[in-house]
């Protein structure tokens, strides 16, 4: 089992020709956001790499990330990657196996200690001893710490695993935290998004699989190949922002003509993701293309960033109402200060004693 075949061997066994393998590599390069000329390098790297064991842990999550991943696979390029990695544990997919799946996870952790790739989706609740989410009698925290020990690297899939996500949204009743909040001694790749783009998940896995290295990461631990630029800067509606042409409501003439959705609350300017280029649903479209602003789902705390329909330049809270309340308080305080001043003034007037020149003279002598 520990002598798993290389990717090329595995594909050859399935009767895949070199031409097909080349196509696979070209698509992989495209998926990894690498230049097309990288395909031969990928072919060479894949020829030498052995199928790594993968353990997938799902914690406080909605299964949207797994959904996103499976959406684009069977039996596509992504499924090939799943043929060529060995997905040894995925409790959502293996729930029916019960105990057996748990024992298999333990066995894989032992046998491939220091080699396996750990994928996590969902945040980890740590309030009240972590009781808010348990699997097979273990809290998520225990399971993560146990499985992380022997992992070569960890991929945090989705905004929950990467940043805490929606479970962490104010007031965060379960004390949800991200993987990186707990595990400090392992390389962690954050693949954020709610859910992340399917090809971004597979692209990151492909990179690790192909080169056996962690891709270049930004300061939030996200691969710069996919999260290097903002939605806004890569948006095809961007030229209209620069021209000051804004859609004023959904589906108005401006929106249909591709004008910028900034005023409708688009969070593109502060959101780093690859939607504008990879798009969704087989490259069909993406939120901004279908007329809705970006929600900023690949950024930390996107759920607490105020209304989705308020522009990023607008305050999160209702400052108008707050200002009125403050004005009332200010008026009361101002009148009080004014009255106090009058009182001081009246006191000074009452205490005022007129002096004559003689009295002054008298003082001098």
């Amino acid at each position, binding site marked *: 089992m520990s002598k798993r075949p290389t990717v090329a061997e595995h594909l050859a066994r399935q009767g895949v020709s070199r031409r097909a393998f080349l196509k696979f590599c070209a698509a992989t390069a495209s998926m990894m956001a690498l230049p097309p000329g990288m395909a031969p390098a990928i072919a060479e790297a894949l020829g030498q790499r052995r199928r790594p064991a993968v353990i997938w842990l799902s914690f406080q999550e909605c299964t949207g990330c797994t959904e996103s991943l499976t959406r684009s696979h069977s039996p596509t390029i992504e499924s090939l990657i799943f043929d060529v990695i060995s997905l040894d544990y995925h409790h959502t997919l293996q729930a029916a196996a019960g105990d057996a799946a748990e024992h298999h996870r333990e066995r894989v952790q032992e046998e491939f200690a220091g080699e396996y790739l750990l994928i996590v989706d969902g945040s980890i609740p740590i309030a009240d001893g972590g009781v808010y989410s348990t699997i097979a009698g273990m809290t998520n925290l225990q399971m993560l710490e146990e499985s992380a020990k022997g992992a070569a690297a960890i991929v945090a899939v989705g905004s929950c695993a990467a*940043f805490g996500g929606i479970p962490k949204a104010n007031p965060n009743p379960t004390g949800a935290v991200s993987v990186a909040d707990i595990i400090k001694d392992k390389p962690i790749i954050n693949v954020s998004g709610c859910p992340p783009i399917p090809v971004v998940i597979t692209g990151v896995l492909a990179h690790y699989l192909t080169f056996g290295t962690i891709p270049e990461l930004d300061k*939030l631990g996200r691969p710069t190949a996919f999260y290097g630029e*903002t939605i*806004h*800067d890569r948006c095809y509606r961007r030229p209209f922002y*620069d*021209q*000051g042409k*804004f859609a004023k409501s959904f589906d108005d003439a401006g929106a249909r003509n591709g004008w910028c959705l*900034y*005023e409708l609350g688009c969070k593109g*300017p*502060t959101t780093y993701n690859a939607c504008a280029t990879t798009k969704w649903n087989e490259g069909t479209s993406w939120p901004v293309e279908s007329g809705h602003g970006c929600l*900023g789902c690949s*950024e*930390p*705390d*996107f759920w*607490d*960033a*105020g209304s989705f329909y*308020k*522009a*990023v*330049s*607008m*305050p*999160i*809270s209702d*400052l*108008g109402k*707050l*200002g009125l309340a*403050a*004005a009332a*308080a*200010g*008026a009361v*305080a*101002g*009148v009080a*200060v*004014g*009255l106090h*001043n*009058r009182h001081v*003034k009246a006191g000074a007037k009452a205490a005022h004693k007129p002096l004559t020149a003689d009295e002054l003279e008298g003082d001098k002598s």
Partner: protein
Amino acid sequence: MTDMELLNWARGPALEWATIIFVVGVLVRFLEMSLLGRKPDLSEARASAAGGGWRTVWRRSIPAPGLVKQAPVVIYAGYAFHIGLLIALLFFAPHILLFKDVFGLSWPALPFFVVDAATVIAIVALLVLLVHRLVNPVRRFLSSWVDYLVWAVTFLPLLTGYLAYHRMILPYTEMLAYHMLSVALLLVVFPFTKLMHTFTIFVSRWYNGAVSGRKGVQL
């Protein structure tokens, strides 16, 4: 703290507190001034007080020729800064959205390149004014730390706004957060410094003009 957490904090609690301090502070100072009371003027008015007031409001907006000769830097850079600031503040599309959100009022924006140029003019003018203040010994002597504070809290929103728009130095999210925080700082400092002139300038001009106007003196 991530950039996004910082931005959320700036767009949320920071601006909330700044707004409260700003509104309460400005109102207290206004009411304090107006409730001090004025002595009733029992003399017969020689001319309209209001007319004198409005005339002065207008006349003082045009620099006296002698003054231009005496302090050209202050006059030119001062006007350039104020006009640049007003254009950047009131006619930048994202700012108009903010005013619409807070006051429910909106108006057409100017093209970005106009706002951009206005911002550059305001920034340069402020720098010129600072150098002017530092180079001249008399001006330097007359300046207190509050003057430099006021300069800084006015300069920072312009600078951070410009850098954020052009995606310079820091990532946009972080720079935008600093921009909003610098505005919050401006709002906090505002009521307790000479920045109050934004609201009092025309009131005091009118008052001066009205006092003289009533006596038949045309300023």
